[in-house]
């Protein structure tokens, strides 16, 4: 058994590095993006191999799905508007020096990794002892939403800042690309697929507390459904003019802060989930986070505000 899995690891590792080199070496940009999508898929297999199922789920939803769509969408914008300029890169001498420098740095880091102790529990034992009080059976969810909830709070802040950054970018004057209505088959496909994807997202969210799954996986899958609706013109790109849209974006962050502060009123520390309420609070937070993450990722896909749809003037007075 281990001999076969060992061969599997060797082939997987070689494929990963070859794909990475391929992405960066090919002249054609489109070929790079396709190789990058395959790279995301291979990474989710690597996570499966390392017992990291939560990461496998996120990589599958984000790496193979959203990032590929984001890159293709940007290539679409770029290709349709400007010619392809072969890029100047450093001369052969410079590249050789760069390769040597990166290689030696890699060797030094490899040596440091080589010196790692073989058996090492890290904080794993400590997480296991407190898992019962954390309100979640899945240790990764327990770490994300209880032990190190502050990290997740700041991370949701990063997501909201990303949306504000794209929204603050002045409107895009480029023409809207998919003006023509989708064909019969594509419309039917989206019509059939989106409900199933929403169900899968709900399933992942509900599983999150006890098994791999949770807000990020569910949000990313939901966002993929949103991208499909957006691409086929079923949904207009959100312009973040209405308060409701903006409220949905910040919903996860504000809810997280509200829970953290409300708990403090009860004499606990910031973000200290009382044992009795831990599970319900985690589930509440995860649901609101899923909605916010899905909307944020769809807005990030849609990019800046397109001038054609709305005048640049802001909402209200």
């Amino acid at each position, binding site marked *: 058994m281990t001999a076969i899995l060992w061969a599997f690891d060797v082939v997987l*590792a070689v494929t990963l*590095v070859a794909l*990475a080199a391929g*992405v*960066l070496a090919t002249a054609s940009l489109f070929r*790079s*993006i396709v190789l990058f999508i395959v*790279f995301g898929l291979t990474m989710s297999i*690597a996570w499966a*191999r*390392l*017992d*990291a199922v*939560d*990461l496998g789920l*996120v*990589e599958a939803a*984000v790496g193979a799905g959203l*990032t590929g769509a*984001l890159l293709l969408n*940007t290539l679409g*914008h*770029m290709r349709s*508007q*400007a010619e392809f300029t072969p*890029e100047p*890169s450093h001369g052969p001498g410079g590249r050789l020096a*760069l*390769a040597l420098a*990166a290689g030696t*740095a*890699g060797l030094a880091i*490899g040596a440091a*990794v080589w010196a*790692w102790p*073989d*058996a*090492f*529990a*890290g*904080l*794993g034992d400590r997480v296991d002892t407190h898992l019962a009080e954390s309100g979640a059976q899945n*240790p*990764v969810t327990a*770490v994300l939403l209880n032990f*190190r909830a502050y*990290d*997740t709070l700041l*991370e949701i802040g*990063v997501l909201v*800042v*990303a949306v504000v*950054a*794209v929204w603050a*970018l002045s409107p*895009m004057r480029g023409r809207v690309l998919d003006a023509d209505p989708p064909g019969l088959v594509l419309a039917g496909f989206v019509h059939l697929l989106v409900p199933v994807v929403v169900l899968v997202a709900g399933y992942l969210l509900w599983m999150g507390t006890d098994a791999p799954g949770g807000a*990020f996986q569910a949000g990313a899958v939901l966002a993929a459904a949103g991208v499909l609706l957006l691409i086929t013109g079923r949904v207009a790109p959100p312009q973040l003019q209405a308060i409701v849209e903006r409220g949905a974006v910040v919903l996860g962050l504000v809810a997280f802060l509200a829970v953290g502060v409300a708990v403090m009123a009860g004499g606990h520390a910031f973000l200290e989930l009382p044992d009795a309420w831990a599970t319900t609070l985690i589930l509440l937070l995860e649901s609101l986070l899923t909605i916010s993450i899905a909307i944020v*990722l769809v807005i*990030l896909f849609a*990019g800046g505000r397109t001038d054609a749809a709305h005048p640049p003037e802001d909402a209200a007075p």
Partner: protein
Amino acid sequence: MTLTLWYALTGVALLVVGVYGLVSRVHVLRQIMAVNIVGAGVFLVLVAGAHRRPSGAIDPVPHAMVLTGIVVAVSATAVALAFARRLRADADERTDGAAREDEARAG
């Protein structure tokens, strides 16, 4: 050569390829992909280190760190791509004279 060491070294190899790619290439899309490859390498090193518990179970803290890292990397990539699209849309405006206004303000 344990599982941990093998995947950690793969991560380091990805890191080296990514950094070399980032520094040597100029096109913005390829630079964004290179940064994501560097990220994938760092995340592999993190998760490989979490697979060394004598009990065979995994250490969830690096997994949570990598999950946070992936979400942060996606949001930064999305912002970078939005900027790239904005630059390209700006390139379009060259034709309708907005460029001169840029140059004038830039001085």
